[in-house]
């Protein structure tokens, strides 16, 4: 899976926001705010990754156990899907 084209992540201190640019921005006027993990996953998904690859990189980066990483990653993937940001 991968983030669709036309979304831009920007960090302001500890706050991370995603805005739409390009043609898609007319249909996508809302802003998405992300926490640190969310921003990390968003950046990772600028290239096509599997769920497993994503979870491994979350474990490496945050040095957390597998169960927590799976839970957090799944929640975030689901949020991205619902917001229409993911290419399956």
């Amino acid at each position, binding site marked *: 899976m991968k983030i669709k084209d036309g979304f831009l992540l920007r960090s302001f201190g500890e*706050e991370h926001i995603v805005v739409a640019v390009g043609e898609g921005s007319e249909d996508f006027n809302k802003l998405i705010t992300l926490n640190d993990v969310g921003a990390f996953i968003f950046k990772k998904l600028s290239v096509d990754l599997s769920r497993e690859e994503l979870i491994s990189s979350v474990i490496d980066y945050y040095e957390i156990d597998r169960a927590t990483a799976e839970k957090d990653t799944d929640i975030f993937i689901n949020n991205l899907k619902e917001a229409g940001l993911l290419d399956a």
Partner: protein
Amino acid sequence: MIFRYKIADIVFDADIRYKYTYNIMKDYLVDDEPARFSVVIDDKDIAAERALSPYHHESDGMYESTAVYRKFIYEIMDKYDAFFFHCSSIAVENKAIMFTAQSGTGKSTHRNLWIKNFGDRVTVINDDKPVIRKIDGKFYVYGTPWRGKESMGNNIRVPAEALCFLSRSEKNYIGEISTSEIIARTLNQTVRPKDESLMIKLLDLLDGFLKQVKCYDLRVNMEDEAAIVAYNKIVKE
């Protein structure tokens, strides 16, 4: 007909067809300086503004004027480090204080309380759509022809000092807030470009702007005390 204007210290030509637009912009006419660019509005632009408007039934002149503003803003954003910010802005002791909120919250009502209580010390910069511009690393609030429903504003520029996120409350309260709490609220009060490089530019400008101004969470009722509480914190401290 083509007229020459100077807004936010930027000179440009605009092809104006409607009396409404001419009238609101006439304080900004100039004739002795070279124009940097031209703004031309066609029927498609007017239709696009009508579609964006929550009312859809204002006059074509009104839509022409907002179309001029939109084109002007996108034209100057990159080259002149400028953006639009939806707020009521006043100057006190040559410092700009901005009140921002969703429409209908009472920005103009609160601004009126400042005028009522502090009289001559308060000058309205712009009551609805000022331009914010960065010059030599400093942000300024500029008056524009788009002055809001009560048509209040002046053709002046004032250094940006304070940005208040206004909400209604029974008790008056003011406290400082950090950038991270307000970036989304700030982005909702400006027009967001479709073009990716312009969007990056806008986010850079907003980042610098929010670091430079003091940001406040301002909760107010409609009594005089609301302006006094805000004044004591923003101007006196």
